[in-house]
């Protein structure tokens, strides 16, 4: 028995196996127009993996709870999604593969804030609840922290805060002279929760948020819902390269295009 005979056996067996696979895998059919509803919430989407077949004409009906840019990698299609209406994201799934889908939340509110950040404390309104009007941190990677010094003029106010990247992280700071005196109060962010999430402090206290989560956060004053109101009047007109400047790119899930 020499190599040549061996190769023949191998070839034969491999061909038989390939034949079996072929019949098993070929569920075929003609390309279809498919519509898939996709819900984008926080840092996930439902379904987590969108499955279509090659050459399907796909319309994703995207319902997002936050405005932003929906990005299908590989195909490299981006589309701005408005939180108020269901967006139609159309493409022909001509290339097989498994492609990442990400979301870049809109950041006009942040940009506005960056300008205000320099002089926070001066023109703060009574309510102080506006989205990002009092303070906003940089992107906090795991292990980073951010501090905010509570100025005297906040007395008897409650400042809500949340993470701009993961809005489920939220809490509030109540400023009162009755609160126990301390130089600084630390709020840990871990497991997408703030510990503690409600603090009561005197004016002049330094509030320190430390990110002990695996994901990034960006601590910002105001309620999450304020952001949505802010976004309403604004239209997205970024430079297309600005996508990365929007802060975190959130991984929503995958598109799987399987061969026919």
């Amino acid at each position, binding site marked *: 028995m020499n190599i040549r005979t061996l190769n023949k056996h191998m070839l034969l067996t491999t061909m038989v196996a390939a034949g079996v696979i072929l019949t098993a895998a070929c569920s075929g059919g003609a390309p279809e127009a498919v519509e898939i509803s996709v819900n984008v919430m926080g840092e996930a989407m439902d379904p987590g993996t969108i499955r279509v077949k090659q050459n399907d004409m796909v319309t994703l009906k995207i319902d997002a709870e936050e405005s932003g840019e929906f990005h299908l990698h590989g195909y490299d299609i981006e589309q701005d999604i408005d939180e108020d209406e269901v967006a139609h994201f159309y493409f022909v799934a001509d290339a097989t593969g498994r492609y990442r889908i990400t979301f870049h939340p809109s950041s006009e509110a942040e940009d506005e804030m960056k*300008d205000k950040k320099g002089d926070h404390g001066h023109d703060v309104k009574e309510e102080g609840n506006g989205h990002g009007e009092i303070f906003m941190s940089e992107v906090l990677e795991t292990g980073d922290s951010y501090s905010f010094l509570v100025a005297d003029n906040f007395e008897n106010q409650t400042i809500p805060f949340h993470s701009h990247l993961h809005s489920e992280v939220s809490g509030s700071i109540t400023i009162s002279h009755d609160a126990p005196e301390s130089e600084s109060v630390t709020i840990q962010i871990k497991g997408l929760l703030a510990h503690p999430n409600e603090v009561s402090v005197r004016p002049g206290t330094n509030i320190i948020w430390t990110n002990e989560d695996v994901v990034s956060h960006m601590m910002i004053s105001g309620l999450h819902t304020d952001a949505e109101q802010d976004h309403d009047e604004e239209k997205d007109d970024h430079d297309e390269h600005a996508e990365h400047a929007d802060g*975190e790119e959130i991984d929503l899930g995958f598109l799987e295009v399987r061969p026919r």
Partner: protein
Amino acid sequence: MKSPRVLFPLLGLVLALAGSPLYAHGFGERTELPVPLGFFLIGAGVTVGLSFAIIGLFAGGSPEHNSYWRHNLYQTRWLRLVLTSRFLMLPVELLVVFLLGLVIATGLFGDQIPSSNFAPTFVWIVWWVGMGFIVALLGNIWTFINPWKILFEWAEGLSRLLRPGSHLSMMRPYPWNWGMWPAILLFLSFTWIQDAFVQSPLPNRVAVLTIIYSVITLGGMAIFGKHQWLRHGEAFSVVFSFLGKFAPTEVRVRDTGLCATCEGGCLSSNGDCVNCYECFSRSEKKELNIRPFAIGLADNENKTNDVLAMVVLLLATVTFDGFSATQIWVDIQTVAVDIFIRVANGATFNGRTIADSLGVLLFPGMFLVIYLAFSRFISGSAGSELPAMAVARKFSYSLIPIAMAYNIAHFITLLLIQGQLIIPLASDPFGFGWNLLGTGDYRINIGIINAKILWYLSVGLIVAGHIIAVYLAHLISLRTFQDRSAAISSQYPMMMLMVIYTVVSLWTIAQPIVA
């Protein structure tokens, strides 16, 4: 930082780091579909079935294993003239040295978004993955286009010109007991950078590491001499020489007198030396042969512990690179992040890095232990007195085809899809918006290869690799154990090990690559 434009590079950096799990291998986004269950099951079934079929074949008779078919390309006159022409080699040498310089320059001074810079795509995808493919499937071209070797030769030539009779190298005697260990340590470091170092896609890091490695390599050649360092210390020359054993080409010198004098001690039992580039560069009686695939792995060389270590490291590295992108490993990372949150929670150094580092270090150890245990069985079932270590050394090459087939299945999509990035980057290597070659606007064609073809290819390759591995192990067993029945019974444990390794490889390509 008022202008968002200033923010782009910085945020790009942050995002590159934040998105690190997707870059589990050095750099590059993966887009392959996992191989479906049916393919996996059939692949695994065929693997097991064929393994036994082969044992049955061998029980009847055995292939010739002392020599093999080969054809000398130099016999064709024009081919010899072209392949040995200085006019061919000089432009190639200039090009590779230029590329080394370009990697350093773009890495240091170019845009720091990894996908906009020439250095990460070139080093991690085109060179590391692409060169591995070429060396394994075509031949060890690295030895002729190694930029550090070329630079050193240029420097040597220059120094001879300036001071005739002088040597650039100090030619310190290479400590024989170091063996290939310097290359093994350097390759382990490279593996760590590839699989655990979060900043490995960053152009600047690529450039700095390239500079460091250049200094080590040129220094090693200056101290111990070019050939000694290339054989023992230059990690990629060593790694590619192992992959090149699989290739269907070889360089051979038929000059026993000369082969006996080479520093590398590459003389083989039949009086020739194969793939010894030191002899090849000095001899007139040289051949460039075509030969069957993988036959180079059946050689009769005496294998030392460093060879065993290098092979085990290669096998483990390839497997870990795939395994680290599966859900299981991501779960392990998550646990590690929780465990180490107090001591390591930075963006670069965190629980994930610790888990990956442990993986890079422990996988080879785990492979070695398993392999030694099976070597013990092999020795036992052949009724041999050989210690497990000796068996492990003798059979070490036989596992390489499985790893190589898996490596190709694992990386082919990355090379074909993400590798296309080099086309626009060739026109705009620094990411400054240039369009030097007119390819700056090229968009990656993600449909270049269909998933179904990839599935057949991947499963087919791994099964074929397995068959070759079983065949090689059989050749080695006939050499190692005196009588045929001992050789055949020694092969049951080996085959079991190979089936496990092959099925693990198949399983890995059947896993979705997760972030």
